[in-house]
């Protein structure tokens, strides 16, 4: 194809734009002096001192474990809840369907940080009554995040469900399948790629979430990565910059791995299989 060199040029340009700040972070993380002002774009040294300090002087390991638990649970549950709702919105016709869809979009538009005060008051009561899902527990935070499980992700999944021909589930229904069988055995396998994409998006959003987690998790050992790492540079910005960048890189590792793991689902393509025929 004659367009291939052009495609490479576009992709290479975008990659350069995407990578240069990351390269800077890498360079800062490997910089033995560990300060902001002494960091260049390309690594000037190869020292693991910043990583060493990160793991020995902070509770990075437990922040990491907490984040994986919370983000893993929240994204898995959110994808499932979202898929259930998307199935109803895409395949069924009921009163309030259009309103419900619009409401999901509108609710996301309220400035959330102000609701923080309310959420704090609410969970103060929850912590008194049910400490197991109160402040400083991953379970409470996951529940709180799942409040947003229906939202833009439902739209994303509904959009893809709409592109699946209805004949597929209609013929299954004629063959005697129930709506639940249609959902679990026909729809879900077909939309696996979009489930993967949605799961990835929720995972990333949860790892990056700072405002609510900062209010929710105050014990050093229960913090997530974003809360813990913010504490690193809120005081000593210049001196802790190397340690901060080391933490930034390690935080990105699980997300990159999840993406790698899910990529074959994403790439396998929505229309490559059964739908096409």
């Amino acid at each position, binding site marked *: 194809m004659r367009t291939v060199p052009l495609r490479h040029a576009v992709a290479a340009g*975008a990659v350069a734009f995407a990578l240069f700040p990351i390269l800077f972070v890498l360079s800062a993380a490997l910089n033995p002096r560990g300060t902001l002002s002494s960091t260049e774009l390309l690594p000037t040294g190869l020292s693991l001192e910043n990583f060493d300090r990160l793991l020995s002087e902070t509770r990075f390991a437990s922040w990491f474990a907490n984040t994986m638990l919370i983000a893993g649970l929240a994204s898995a549950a959110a994808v499932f809840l979202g898929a259930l709702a998307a199935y109803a919105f895409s395949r069924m016709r009921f009163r309030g369907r259009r309103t419900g869809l619009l409401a999901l979009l509108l609710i996301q538009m309220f400035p959330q940080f102000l609701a923080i005060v309310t959420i704090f008051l609410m969970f103060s009561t929850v912590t008194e009554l049910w400490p197991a899902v109160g402040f400083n527990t991953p379970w409470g935070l996951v529940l709180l995040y799942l409040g947003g499980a229906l939202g833009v992700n439902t739209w994303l999944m509904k959009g893809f469900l709409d592109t699946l021909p209805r004949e597929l589930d209609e013929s299954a229904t004629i063959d005697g399948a129930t709506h639940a069988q249609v959902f679990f055995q026909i729809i879900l396998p077909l939309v696996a790629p979009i*489930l993967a994409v949605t799961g990835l998006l929720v995972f990333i959003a949860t790892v990056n979430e700072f405002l609510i987690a900062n209010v929710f998790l105050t014990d050093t050992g229960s913090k997530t990565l974003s809360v813990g790492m913010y504490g690193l540079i809120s005081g000593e910005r210049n001196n802790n910059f190397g340690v901060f960048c080391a933490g930034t890189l390690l935080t990105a590792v699980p997300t990159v791995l999840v993406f790698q793991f899910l990529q074959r689902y994403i790439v396998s393509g929505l229309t490559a299989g059964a739908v096409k025929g």
Partner: protein
Amino acid sequence: MATQLTSAGPGRRAPHGGRHRTEPYIVRDSAPVTLTGLTAKVVLLGLAAGIAVWAAFPLVEARAWAGLAILAGTTAAIFYLYLTRRHVPAKYLVPGTLLLIAFQIFPILYTASTAFTNFGDGHRGNKAEAIVAIQTASVTQVPGSTEYALAVATTGDPATGPLVFLVTDPATRAVYAGNAAGLRALPEGEVTVNSAGKVTAARGYTVLDAGQASARSAEITAFAVPTPGGAIRSSGLSRAYEGKATREYAEACDCVRDTATGRTWTADEGAGAFVAADGERLAQGWKVGVGLANFSRVLTDSTISGPFLRTLLWNVAFAVGSVAATFALGLLCALALHTPRMRGRALYRVLLILPYAMPSFAMLLVWRDLFNTDFGLVNRLFGLDVDWLGGVWSARLAVVLVQMWLGFPYMFLVATGALQAIPRELTEASTVDGAGPWQSFRRVTLPLLMVALTPLLISSFAFNFNNFNAVYLTTEGGPFPADNPTAGATDLLITYTFRLAFGAAGAQYGFAAAISVFIFAIVALLSAVSFRRTRRQEELYA
């Protein structure tokens, strides 16, 4: 809290939902009931009932009958819903909706309702609490005050847990535990007291050692245990005294009187504060409804309404610019990689997604340093000497550029997914019909893409409209004009509100909530307009 029921049920199954041939767990309409379906339903409803019972005990103990009624009602509704054959859509919508109501809709409505009150610093509790706070704060040590031996303790973590004063009466050696709610006598068997009369251990409390106590000395100094007619306050870390309140509330005149100076402050129910004849207010007030005062303040106060419009315009430009920039670059990348003939696509994909994998809050802070005038990488790399975040337009450009870097991988991902969903036959057919690549993109691919992606673009617009972090972590709203330090050139309405409401003057949640309602109305209106256009588009192409 009944929402736990559903999330714990179907939610935990989610990791397997997509890949296993999972059995149906919802009642069938017409086909015979399968064993797996029935089993799953019994297990999940049993789990829901179990969680409901677990959640009910603390509610009964706390005598929270309203909460218990909501829990029972929700549980009953769930059982009805999943045992009946009717209401099929609700079976799929209820799990997510319950969580949505509990953790999004309820907090939003509650927040919006505070817009009609003066809720904020100095106006948090009710009038009785304000009176207690005024009396407690006015306590001074007078001759003849009782002196106690003090041990500072907590019911939680020594560094952060709630403080409790364990005080020993010198005359009777009786031990009391005191917090903001008042004093409570501790039974003799539960405490250990040393020879000096100081408590060294008490059941249910952690006594702070000298180091832990001195680390929280500011908190301890401010801490007061209300008693009838005064309060117990600390004097150092091991002594406490019961002082007398110099300011007292008198019910007859509904006023607070200072016994030392004779000055009086009369309660003003409209303002929720005690006000002296000359207009001086006591700092401790209470929460009252103020009607539309917060809303009219936004429109009539010239220091607020003036910059509001200018900020609104930039806010719209920022949101539109961010969405356009991220979508354009993301779509360009997705199109470039959308061909099986290209080598290295997997590698490109991994590299392009990297900005999205990096923690965004951390990268925003890094970007701020990249734009630094003196040692910022952007200037060093291009040999420039631009004060990026100091100039109005360069700062605006920088903010959008950073947002483009953070956001384009998301657009790349969804555009790739949407492109893959478009059957290749369609573009192939248009090629056969003689369309060029541009024509077939413009006439076939793009319209189909837009059907799937427009709701996401609108939602992305709404997200960027309130993108607090993107501005607060990079420019903090600056640069500021010399004559107005409250509204900067890159300020979004939300950062502007944040500074107004939580800034130097202390928290004013009521006022902030009123501005939030305005913001919500603006975003909702803009989105609704674009949404109507989508609907027309959907009808056109779907």
